[in-house]
C-alpha cells in the first residue's frame, strides 16, 4: 500500500521533472556566450563545408556559438515560412531572391545598413550586386554568390551531329535546328529538353524582347497570348522528336534529362553544372543561351543565395559579424569554392580555390560578363510559388492534357491570386 505522503512526494517529483523539461525548452546560456541560430538550405556535402566555416568563425569569435540547421530547398522554405508565422526566425538565414521582398515586406528582416561600417563590410560586393539585397532603400540581404543562365550540353553529341558548337549570339531558330539535327543524327539521345517548364527561359525571352517577367508595380509582365505562344513553340519540336517527351522527363525526376542521359542539352542556372556532372559520366560544357536580339542576351547575374538576419534577433551585432565573416573571408571562399555560386565578393571571388567544374562556370561567366546586366529588382511577394505552378502547367501542356491557351489562362489567374497577396 502506498501512503498518501508517498504519493504526494511522487506527484511533486513528477511536477519537478515537468518543470525541468519546461525550463530546458526555454534554454539559454548564462556564461556570456552568445548563441546564434543559423539556417540554410542544401545537402550533406554543403553541411560539412558549412561546419568548417563555422568552426573557423567560432575560433575567431570565442564568445559566439553558432548552431546551424539545414534542409533541402522545399523543406527549407516550408520550415522558414512556418517559423516566420510562429514569430521566431533563426538569427541568420539564407535568403533567395524570389522570397526577399516577401520577407522584407513582412518586417521579418533586419536592415543591415545599421551594422554597415561597424560589424559588416559590404564594400567588396561586385558592382552588379550592389543593390540586390536592397528593398525600398533598406539593406535586407548580402549576396553570397551569383549565377547566370546557360545551356549545358554534351559537346561530343553536338560534334558527332556536325552541329557547330553554339557561340555567342545564336538565335532560337538556330537552336531549334541544332537540337533537331542532334536528335536525328544520334537516334539515341534527344537534342534538347522541354524548356516549357522553365519560367526562367520565359523570363530570358521576355528580357530579350525588352520586357520583364515582373512589372515595376509587382504584376506579371507577360499576358496570356505571349505565354500561350511560349508553350505552343514546343509542339513542333515535340512532334519532330527534337526534345525529350514530357512523360519520359517526368519519370527520371529528380534527375535532369541531361543527367539521366536523355538529352544532349539542357537550360539551367550555370551553378547546376556541378549537379549535372555528378549525375552523368559524359563530358559537359556551357554555352550562352540563344537570343532573339544579338545585342541583348537578356541574361543577368542573379544572386544564387544571400544572407539575411531576423529583424527581432536579440544579437544583431553578432549576426552581422557572422554575415561579414562568411561574405568577406577568403578562407571561407576556399572552403566553399564555387559550390554556392561563384562568390559575390571580389576578395572571395579571387581568393577561392576552384575545382574543374567551378572553373568552367567562372570561365563561362567571365566570357559573357560584359553582356550581363544588373539583376531586375527583387521579384514581388508571392513570386516564390509561381515557379512550381509554371512547372506543373508546362508539364500538363507537354503531356497534351491542356492546350497552351488553357494553361496560359490558368497561370495568369494563379499569378493574379498569388502575387502581392
Amino acid at each position, binding site marked *: 500500500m502506498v501512503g498518501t505522503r508517498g504519493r504526494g512526494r511522487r506527484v511533486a517529483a513528477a511536477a519537478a521533472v515537468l518543470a525541468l523539461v519546461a525550463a530546458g525548452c526555454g534554454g539559454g546560456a548564462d556564461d556570456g556566450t552568445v548563441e546564434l541560430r543559423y539556417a540554410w538550405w542544401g545537402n550533406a556535402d554543403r553541411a560539412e563545408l558549412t561546419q568548417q566555416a563555422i568552426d573557423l568563425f567560432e575560433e575567431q569569435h570565442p564568445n559566439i556559438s553558432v548552431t546551424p540547421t539545414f534542409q533541402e530547398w522545399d523543406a527549407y522554405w516550408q520550415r522558414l515560412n512556418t517559423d516566420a508565422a510562429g514569430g521566431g526566425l533563426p538569427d541568420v538565414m539564407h535568403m533567395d531572391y524570389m522570397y526577399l521582398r516577401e520577407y522584407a515586406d513582412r518586417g521579418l528582416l533586419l536592415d543591415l545598413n545599421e551594422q554597415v561600417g561597424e560589424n559588416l563590410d559590404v564594400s567588396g560586393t561586385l558592382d552588379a550586386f550592389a543593390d540586390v539585397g536592397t528593398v525600398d532603400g533598406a539593406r535586407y540581404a548580402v549576396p553570397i554568390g551569383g549565377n547566370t543562365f546557360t545551356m549545358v550540353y554534351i559537346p561530343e553529341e553536338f560534334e558527332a551531329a556536325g552541329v557547330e558548337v553554339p557561340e555567342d549570339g545564336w538565335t532560337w531558330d538556330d537552336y531549334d535546328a541544332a537540337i533537331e539535327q542532334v536528335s536525328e543524327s544520334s537516334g539515341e539521345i534527344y537534342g534538347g529538353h522541354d524548356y516549357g517548364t522553365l519560367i526562367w527561359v520565359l523570363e530570358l525571352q521576355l528580357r530579350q524582347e525588352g520586357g520583364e517577367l515582373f512589372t515595376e508595380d509587382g504584376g506579371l509582365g507577360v499576358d496570356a497570348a505571349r505565354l500561350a505562344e511560349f508553350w505552343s513553340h514546343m509542339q513542333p519540336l515535340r512532334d519532330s522528336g527534337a526534345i525529350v517527351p514530357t512523360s519520359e522527363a517526368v519519370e527520371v525526376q529528380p534527375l535532369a534529362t541531361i543527367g539521366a542521359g536523355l538529352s544532349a542539352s539542357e537550360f539551367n542556372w550555370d551553378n547546376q553544372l556541378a549537379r549535372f556532372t555528378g549525375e552523368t559520366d559524359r563530358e559537359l560544357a556551357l554555352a550562352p543561351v540563344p537570343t532573339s536580339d544579338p545585342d541583348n542576351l537578356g541574361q543577368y547575374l542573379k544572386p544564387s543565395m544571400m544572407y539575411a538576419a531576423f529583424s527581432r534577433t536579440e544579437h544583431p551585432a553578432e549576426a552581422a559579424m557572422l554575415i561579414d565573416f562568411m561574405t568577406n573571408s577568403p578562407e571561407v571562399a576556399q572552403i566553399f569554392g564555387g559550390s554556392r555560386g561563384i562568390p559575390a565578393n571580389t576578395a572571395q571571388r579571387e581568393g577561392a580555390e576552384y575545382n574543374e567544374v567551378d572553373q568552367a562556370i567562372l570561365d563561362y561567366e567571365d566570357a559573357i560578363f560584359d553582356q550581363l546586366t544588373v539583376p531586375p529588382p527583387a521579384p514581388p511577394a508571392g513570386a516564390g510559388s509561381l515557379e512550381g505552378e509554371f512547372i506543373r502547367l508546362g508539364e*500538363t501542356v507537354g*503531356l497534351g492534357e491542356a492546350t497552351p491557351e488553357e494553361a496560359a489562362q490558368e497561370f495568369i489567374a494563379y499569378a493574379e491570386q498569388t502575387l502581392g497577396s
Partner: protein
Amino acid sequence: MAERPPAKASPDRPARRRARPARAGREGAAGYLFLSPWILGIVLLTLGPMLASLYLSFTDYNLFDQPEWVGLDNYAAMFADERWRGSVRVTLVYVLLSVPAKLALALAVAMLLARRRRGEGFYRSAFYAPSLLGASVSLALVWRALFMQDGAVDRTLSSVGIELGGWVGNPDYALLVLVVLAIWQFGAPMVIFLAGLKEVPQELYEAADVDGAGRWRKFWSVTVPMISPVIFFNLLLETVNAFQVFTASYVVSNATGGPADSTLFYTLYLYFQGFTDFRMGYASAMAWMLVAGVGLVTLLLFRLSRAWVYYAGEDGR
C-alpha cells in the same frame, strides 16, 4: 443507491461506505494522472488543432497575417476549383479500384492459408511482409523504378508485345501504379480474414457437404455470411484509410501529384494548398470537407451493412 437508508446491515458496511467516496476520488486522481499523457496529447495535439482548423476554415489565413473571417467562402471556392474537383475524382477512383481488389485478394489468400499445411507460418509472414513496409519512401521509390520506361514492368509487357511505355510518366496509367501498390499490401486485412475464417464452425461445412453443396456454393452460402462482420470491418477500415492516402503519391510522383495531376490525391492537394501556397484557411476547409466526406461514406456503409452483414444467409449474398 442514494435513497437507501444508511448503514444497518453488516458491520463492515458503514466503514466501506465512508471510505468509498474518498478512495474513489483518490483513485480517480491517480487514474487521471496515469491518463494525463494521453489526455494532454489528445487535447493539445488533436482536439486543439482540430478546433483551430475548424475556425481557420472560415478565414483567409496565409500564416503571416491575422486570419480574416470570410464565412463560407472557402467551402464555396472548392466547388469552383477545377483542381479540387480533379483531386476528388482521383481519390474516388483510387478508393473504388484499390479497396475491393485488395479485399478480394486478401480473402483469397487468407482462404488458401487457412488450411493446415507445412510452412504455414512462413507463407503467412511472406504475404504479410509487404504491409510491414507500409507507406515507406524507399518502397515507393522501388515501385517507381519498376513502372518506369524500360523498368521491369515495361520490359515484361514489351516482351509479350504490349507496348505501353512507362506508367509513371503517363497520366492514363500513373494512378494504376498506386492502385497496384495498394493492392499488393493486402497483409493487414488478410490476417483479420484468417482469424475470421478460423471462427467458422466446421459443422456448417460438414452439413453443406451432406446437402451436396459444391465449393462455390459453400463459399457463398457458408463462408461469406459467417465472416460478413469481418468483411464489413475490413471494408470500413480500408475505405477510410484509402481516402487518406498520401505518401505513396507524394513519393512516386516526386512530390507533384503529377503527371498532369493524375495522382493528385485529395490529401496531397490539401498539403500543397497549405504548405506550398500557404492558403491555410482553404486547406483547413478542405480538411473538414474530407472529414465530412469520409463520415458520409462511413455512414452509408453502415446503413448498407444492415442488408448484408447480419441477415446474409437468406438470399445467399
